[in-house]
């Protein structure tokens, strides 16, 4: 059960939650007052979170959509010259 690098429950969670959770665990581990068994369990969780977040970044591709295609943008468009600045 801990061999699954990025289990389904993590795949469904937002990226920033994965990172925040990972940061929390690292801090908890670093304060060092957890029982040993719990430290090990938390560490396993940290590895899962790291793998899930890393995979998410690796596979991320900016999703792009458009509302009301052409609406209000059809007729009178700025020229490329007028809009040349980034």
């Amino acid at each position, binding site marked *: 059960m801990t061999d699954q690098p990025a289990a389904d429950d993590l795949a469904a969670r*937002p*990226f*920033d939650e994965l*990172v925040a959770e*990972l*940061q929390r*665990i*690292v801090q908890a*581990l*670093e304060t*060092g007052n*957890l029982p*040993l068994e719990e*430290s*090990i369990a*938390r*560490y396993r969780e*940290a*590895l899962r979170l*790291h793998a899930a*977040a*890393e995979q*998410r*970044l690796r596979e*991320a*591709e*900016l*999703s*792009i*959509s*458009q*509302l*009301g*295609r*052409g*609406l*209000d*943008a059809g*007729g*009178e*468009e*700025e020229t*490329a010259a*007028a*809009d*040349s*600045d*980034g």
Partner: protein
Amino acid sequence: MVNDSDQPTLWGAPRAAPRILRVTDLNRRVRALLDGDPALADVWVEGEVSQPTYPPSGHCFFTLKDAASQVKAVLFREELARATVRPVHGMQVICHGKVRAYEPQGTYQVYVESLTPAGAGDLHQQYEALRVRLAGEGLFDPARKRPLPRWPRRIGVVTSPTGAVWRDIGNVLRRRYPIGELVLSPTIVQGPTAAGAIVRALDRLSARGDIDVVILGRGGGSLEDLWSFNDERVVRAVAAAPMPVVVGVGHESDVTLADFAADLRAPTPSAAAEQVAPDLSTFPAILDRLRDRASAALVGRLAERRRFLAAEGRALTRLLPDTAALRQRTADLVDRGHRALLSRTGQQATALVGLADALRALSPAATLERGYAVVRLADGTIVRDPAQTAAGELLDVVVARGSIGARVDRVTPGTEELLP
């Protein structure tokens, strides 16, 4: 002034000598001349800005020129802050100010008090009037500005779908924040119908209810090109949007009223894209550092437990009873007990002998042995006084080895002379 003296000179014939001025005197004279001209104290001059510089002093120095001539100009920090546009190279402007000489350099320049884009006199007045009115309503108050979400899920973009701005925003976010979702709400961004279209495009995003932040962007252009972003409807729509709006319009030097109303003003559309989301391009390294910290913490924890257990082990060994020492102590105790017992019996034996002697000394037998006798009456009473008896009475005389029955012959009181 001319020196009128006609003293002889080295060159012979006396003549009117020229008055020689120091440079400082000359410059002071020129300055006084310019200062004395009321027209130069209040001039309007139109020209093209050339090579503006912005040194750390905060002032702006530039050259104002037309096809044939040029003149130096300076816009001091305070005036620059009030100006609605920053002078940029090539900009056609009308400057209002005064002309003065700068004595140390022997130059004169235009000290600009206000500067407006040329040909925009009407527009500029409209802009100022609207700015003052909306500012009076509090539309531009810093307190109204909302913080941007740190991790936006959906980023709305209001701009032209065909321009470079949309392409650039996509590129920036694809590189920096690929986990996001871009939603383009297309609009025209210039022309008489642009303001209404921009408002509608913003409304479409607001209506979705799932947009975390909006970029309103447009590339650079003339003041007229950017005019839609000074339209009151657009400014109000930006201020009223339910989600934070980042406005990035034109170049750094262009400040539209929409910029004032925005929750964040970005100098350009690309900068707006950089400011709406964190840069994740560095995140793999950050994630790896977090994982390494977790590993280090666990390794440290394990090492600490191991040290702890080792220390506990040593403590336990110290706490175990030392049987050899115990055995020795037991043996010692037995020995001591034995010795104590022996010495006690010795003492008691000696004591017993003493006691026996004492007892013996106290016994009447010993006294009898020494030759004394005990005289008793018939009823057993011991006779200590002759008066206890009378002549003819029977007495019992006890000696060491037996008793003698005797009859009293005579009775004589007193003892001293009787004893041997």
